[in-house]
């Protein structure tokens, strides 16, 4: 679905993404791991049109999408979440979701003024949909809360919720799990699998929780220093020496129990 | 061909006045940029703070003059400047207590603070006019010129003169010293860094043990010192008049913004950009061209790109063009 070819993105002299090439197969749930600062988020930002690449190209279903603005990519079915939550702080949680779908008839002034009936009907549908998503994310009780007033983890859930408001082709999730309760994260994992299986969404998931990655992803790509370090099934990647050295480590060194 | 005369004409009418005016703007802009950098709002009362500080200094100067104290060749006002700074600092600190602190605690949006500062501006405006009136006041004494146009002509035998006023020289030197000091203060000292930390993330500054009230107080004191110095130097060079000080606000803001809000170096650069764009683009090159070109080619017209009617338009156009290419100013300023 997505092919990234020899992509570079530099900040001044620093090469955040340094010639990465990778593919995300249609229908897959691709995991993207790598040490902090490996360039994962930057890669997402470039693919999603938030940052222009220094060089290289990105294609989606064979069509070049390098440098398209994010809103254009959204209309092509490419959605993403942000690692650092980007909620609409002054709006209610429900409105945060309702604003997502594209081409709402009420978004043109003409309809807002003169076709109020049709707009109202559409709003009801959106509202139901949003409530459904909130229910799933276990935050229905916050529907009318201002989004700036919800907890850190809840904001991450909201990020995820937005991608569930529309039918997407491919969804980029940037550490949706960080700060989310593990039990809930499992449920989210199930939902991702379901969306993938039932509706054919493609996912690309950045995550540092290896359990989560292991449960969901195939294949897994590990980045380091802006390049692709390893690629393969979870098992392959997990046992790759370089990945262990750069990313996974060998567990706690201190003896854990009874240290005091 | 008379390169020397052409050069002197250019220096006398464009470079020296532009430099001095730029330095004046820069000094004002430093205050604006400091408040923006630390307290995160555009302080509309800055022009009137300048007026207030200058007023106190003038009163002090009169007192000194009455007592027979002068500073020799330098203006007496420089002796009264510390007084002006002290009183102005007291005033702005009191204003902060009475007005701004409330909104800071409320975490009010910057625009609210801007409008509040507009209110403060009106009040200060009234106070200044009440105490010293609205008339123009000249308070410069001492040597007026380092060199006058006439003396220069006599000395060099050129037909063009070059005049440099004492106040112009003082302003430029002060501006450079102040910007260096401020830069050093903000980037190298503990207090300076704590001020930047406060402006960046107030809550976290609190968690680091930084005392916000102290940061705010230091900021206001510095701003008062900058405003008073700028106001006094400007007043010495031109004259003091409450309304003009209010009008200065616009070019000062322009300078601070084009330089990049929050950046002392930007304030200096911005001051010169604004000043020189006002002076150079509307300059009539006739005189310079007449010196440089052979008689036969001497221009009839003024050789002026734009008439001076448009000097503000021109300086703003240049400002906008700069911003189009550098959206947060020459020195990567902040934006809220």
């Amino acid at each position, binding site marked *: 679905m997505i092919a990234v070819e020899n992509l570079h993105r530099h900040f001044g002299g620093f090469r955040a993404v340094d010639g990465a090439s990778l593919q995300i197969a249609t229908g897959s749930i691709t995991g993207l791991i790598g*040490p902090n600062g490996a360039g994962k988020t930057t890669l997402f930002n470039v693919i999603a049109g938030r940052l222009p690449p220094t060089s290289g190209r990105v294609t989606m279903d064979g069509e070049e999408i390098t440098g398209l603005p994010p809103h254009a990519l959204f209309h092509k079915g490419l959605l993403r979440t942000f690692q650092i939550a980007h909620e609409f702080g002054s709006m209610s949680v429900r409105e945060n979701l309702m604003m997502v779908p594209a081409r709402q008839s009420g978004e043109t002034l003409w309809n807002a003024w003169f076709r109020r009936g049709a707009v109202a009907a559409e709003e009801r549908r959106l509202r139901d949909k949003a409530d459904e998503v909130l229910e799933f994310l*276990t935050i229905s009780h916050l529907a009318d809360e201002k989004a700036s007033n919800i907890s850190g983890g809840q904001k991450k859930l909201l990020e995820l919720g937005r991608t569930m408001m529309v039918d997407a082709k491919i969804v980029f999730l940037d550490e949706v799990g*960080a700060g989310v309760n593990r*039990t809930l994260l499992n449920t989210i994992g199930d939902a991702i699998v379901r969306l993938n299986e039932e509706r054919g969404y493609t996912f690309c998931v950045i995550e540092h929780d290896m359990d989560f990655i292991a449960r969901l992803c195939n294949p897994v790509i590990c980045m380091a220093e802006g390049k692709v370090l390893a690629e393969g099934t979870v098992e392959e990647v997990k046992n790759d020496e370089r990945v262990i050295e750069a*990313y*996974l*480590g060998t567990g706690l060194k201190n003896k854990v129990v009874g240290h005091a | 061909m008379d390169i020397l005369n052409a050069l002197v004409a250019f220096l006398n009418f464009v470079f020296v006045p532009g430099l001095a005016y730029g330095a004046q703007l820069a000094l004002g802009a430093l205050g604006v940029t400091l408040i923006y950098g630390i307290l995160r709002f555009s302080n509309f009362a800055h022009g009137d703070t300048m007026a207030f500080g200058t007023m106190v200094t003038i009163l002090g100067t009169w007192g000194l003059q009455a007592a027979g104290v002068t500073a020799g060749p330098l203006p007496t006002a420089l002796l009264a400047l510390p007084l002006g700074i002290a009183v102005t600092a007291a005033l702005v600190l009191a204003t902060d207590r009475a007005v701004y602190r409330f909104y800071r605690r409320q975490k009010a949006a910057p625009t609210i603070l801007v409008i509040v500062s507009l209110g403060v501006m009106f009040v200060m405006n009234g106070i200044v006019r009440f105490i010293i009136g609205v008339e123009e006041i000249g308070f410069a004494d001492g040597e007026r010129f380092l060199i006058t146009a006439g003396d220069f002509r006599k000395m060099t035998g050129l037909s063009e003169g070059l005049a440099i006023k004492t106040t112009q020289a003082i302003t430029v030197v002060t501006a450079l010293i102040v910007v260096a000091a401020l830069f050093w203060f903000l980037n190298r000292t503990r207090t300076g860094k704590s001020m930047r930390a406060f402006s960046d993330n107030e809550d976290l500054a609190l968690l*680091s043990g930084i005392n916000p009230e102290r940061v705010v107080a230091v900021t206001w004191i510095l701003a008062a010192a900058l405003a008073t110095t700028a106001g006094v130097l400007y007043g010495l060079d031109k004259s003091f008049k409450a309304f003009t000080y209010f009008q200065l606000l616009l070019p000062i803001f322009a300078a601070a913004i084009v330089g990049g809000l929050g950046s002392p170096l930007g304030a200096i650069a911005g001051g010169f950009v604004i000043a020189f764009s006002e002076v150079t683009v509307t300059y009539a090159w006739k005189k310079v061209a007449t010196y440089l070109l052979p008689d036969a080619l001497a221009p009839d017209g003024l050789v002026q790109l734009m008439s001076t009617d448009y000097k503000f338009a021109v300086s703003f156009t240049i400002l906008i063009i700069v911003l189009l290419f550098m959206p947060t100013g020459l020195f990567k300023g902040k934006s809220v």
Partner: protein
Amino acid sequence: MAEPFLIGESMTGGYGAADILHGCTLAVEKGQIAVIVGPNGAGKSTAMKAVFGMLRLRAGHVKLEGEDITALTPQARVAKGMAFVPQTHNIFTSMTVEENLEMGAFLRRDDIRGTMEQVYELFPILKDKRRQAAGELSGGQRQQVAVGRALMTQPKVLMLDEPTAGVSPIVMDELFDRIIEVARTGISILMVEQNARQALMIADKGYVLVQGANRFTDTGPALMADPEVRRSFLGG
């Protein structure tokens, strides 16, 4: 039993009219590690803020070394040797990494270079990036800066709100290691974690908060062993 080193006792309060915390109690002994877990929105961060004085309590009190500090401002608590890493907005984005660390040591008058070296040792990547604005760092790097800043205070109590969110496994292990070491030097640690299994492994005490109240309290390993806790809060 003697009074704990730091305790927030039956704290009740919230941001506006409605209470978020309902008589919640958190405590940590000297040189020990206490870990708070719970679902999203349970009030973990709120409880931390309450202990640090960033929230007005309607009932309950906070005591440090037996002294009631409920009325103190956060700054005053910093001066008393408490340090806190909030969950969000926990770095100075416009300042360099090094300046962030310096700000952590703002109240210290002694030589801070040694501590800074230790932080760089713990998070080597920060040393490479020390002249870069912290706002330009990756998510995990920012988190490292935030923890580093708190370590710079050389506190008596270190409060961490999800320090490992977004950091890679290798760094997380390092971080937990360091936390254990720090605790061994006699510093008390109170932290919120969603990487609960690792965290509870090293915890002397674990709290499960639900809807602003204590649901389970026990030693870390004991909580981990509780099937109910595992299923509902630790992801099975």
